[in-house]
């Protein structure tokens, strides 16, 4: 189910231990692990809050990009040499050593481009929709985002407050702030 503002809420915390407690409480209350997200202004050690490990397929992108770039480089170099078969410097018409430079750069360019696309895609960006968020996250606060709380908002809110949340943000408040 997609995250929409109406079924999501964000709890704001000061302390990493409180965040871990909140996640435990929410899971105990029946919320699925993959619907809970921790927001922070800096990366924390993996698994620090007991969150579910994130799976991704980023490593596929550089390989596909490299393959595409290699093909373009090969086409360009072989194609241009065959199109105008001029002997220069005694070198063969299809001169492989010089071709390798352009093919290599094409391969790396393809790998880089696709890797960046992959990073943006796997980060689930762009994410410009209305999701509960608070600028205090950027000031060092930690957030626990419950993405699918439809019909159970009160339950989620109770679990967050009991864990020590200093504020709860829902869609309406998030919009009001903007």
């Amino acid at each position, binding site marked *: 189910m997609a995250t929409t503002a109406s079924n999501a809420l964000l709890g704001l915390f000061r302390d990493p231990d409180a965040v871990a407690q909140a996640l435990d409480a929410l899971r105990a209350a029946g919320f699925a692990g993959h619907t809970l997200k921790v927001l922070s202004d800096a990366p924390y050690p993996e*698994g620090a*809050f*007991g969150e579910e490990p994130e799976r991704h397929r980023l490593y596929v992108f550089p390989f596909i990009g490299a393959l595409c770039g290699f093909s373009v480089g090969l086409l360009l170099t072989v194609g241009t040499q065959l199109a105008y078969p001029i002997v220069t410097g005694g070198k063969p018409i299809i001169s492989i050593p010089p071709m390798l430079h352009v093919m290599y750069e094409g391969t790396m360019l393809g790998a880089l481009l696709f890797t960046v696309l992959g990073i943006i895609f796997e980060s689930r960006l762009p994410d410009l929709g209305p999701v509960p968020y608070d600028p205090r996250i950027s000031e060092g606060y930690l957030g626990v985002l419950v993405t699918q709380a439809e019909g159970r908002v009160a339950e989620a809110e109770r679990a967050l407050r009991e864990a020590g949340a200093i504020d709860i943000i829902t869609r309406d408040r998030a919009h009001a702030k903007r």
Partner: protein
Amino acid sequence: MARHHPTAPITAEEATHDLLRRLGQVRAGTGGVVLVLAVLAVAGLVALVALIASGPEPRAKWGYAAATLGFLVSAAQGAPIVAFATRLAKGFWGIPLRRAAELFAVSGIVTTPLYIVLLFQLPDWRGRPSVWFDWPGAPLLWDSIAIVMFSLAGLALLYLSSRPDFAAARDAGIRGPFQRLALGWIGTVRQWQVLSGGIVVLGGLYLMFYPYMHMFLAVDLGMSLVPGWKSAVFAPYHGVSGLQASLASTLLAAAALRHFGGLQRYIGLAPFWGAAKILLALSLLFFYFTWSEFMPTWYGRTPEEIFVLELLFFGPYLWLFILSFSLNFILPFLLLIWNPIRVSIKGPTFVAALVLIGNFIDRLRIYVASWSVAGPVGQHLEHAPPTHYPGLPDLLILVGGPAAVVLLYLLALRFIPPISLWEFKNGLLLTRERPYVKTEVAVVAKPR
């Protein structure tokens, strides 16, 4: 994620007791290995003496002896730099590898006399393109001084870094010459400061001298013998491929110590994983230096350059070049880019074996080819002579040289602990596992 200390927790006292009790002991099965190595080493020595007795001509017959020397200097005498580099970078993952690397300094006992013997077999030097420019005594005197100094420096580094462990053996009452070797070490603050400073200075000098040592070897026993061969990148290429082979030797030694020496608690995943990344980088550098040599030579197309390409790359030693390129670059690259292979013990060990064989083949290619055309100054050759295949003396030297180094390595292990005990204990002091909220993290201290 790999941690920066042994796989199973171990205390400093346990490590001290465990590592020191191995000194002076002969593990079951090693007696047979030592005997075989000794026989091979002696056979190699006999073959070398026979070669000397038969005179310097034809020069081509010295190619395999020169290749053995090139291989040993590359794969063994560069290993102390592996130890020094991890110390300089304060990489705790490298602690289990340092002693295994430094022990290869004993190879200087084999390479020094072999180098000097080969210097006497060189053809006329006056007027020859050389790094010495007809300097008096060159190359015999200066190359001899260089290899002697280089070997002594390596042995000095080995001794210096082992001294605290000799003292520990002395204090534990282990039988052996440890009282004399410790030279009064009692572990005062000043002694530690002098030791640390000395290792840095000596290691730094060893590192700085290393590329020049490779230049003398590669150019005087290789490039200068080939008419028309002038390549500024060849000496750095020889040095970098030497470092690659040295790291491979260190990894193989560490794997052997772990498996046959029962050192699994000391040599875990982290050293292999850390070294695998560097091995990948060095394999890429191997390609880079090969390409730097090849590209201007191929592009220039002067008669001399065409001759060099034929002799060293595409002519009688084509298969050696293909094998060397595959084992030093293609296979290591294709294997080590995969996480499951890189983050393991068997993966980097297997790749290290490939690299070591590749380096051996590469030295065969360079030196056998060079000595096959070694002749008077100013000679001009149209085409490369046919492949010079090894005879029985060549095979005995090729096997005997490395056997002698391994023999000396095993003998040294009777007196020097295979893991640097004082650095291992230092690593235990500076690394911790701590809980962090709901996970456990490795904490690494970085003192000044």
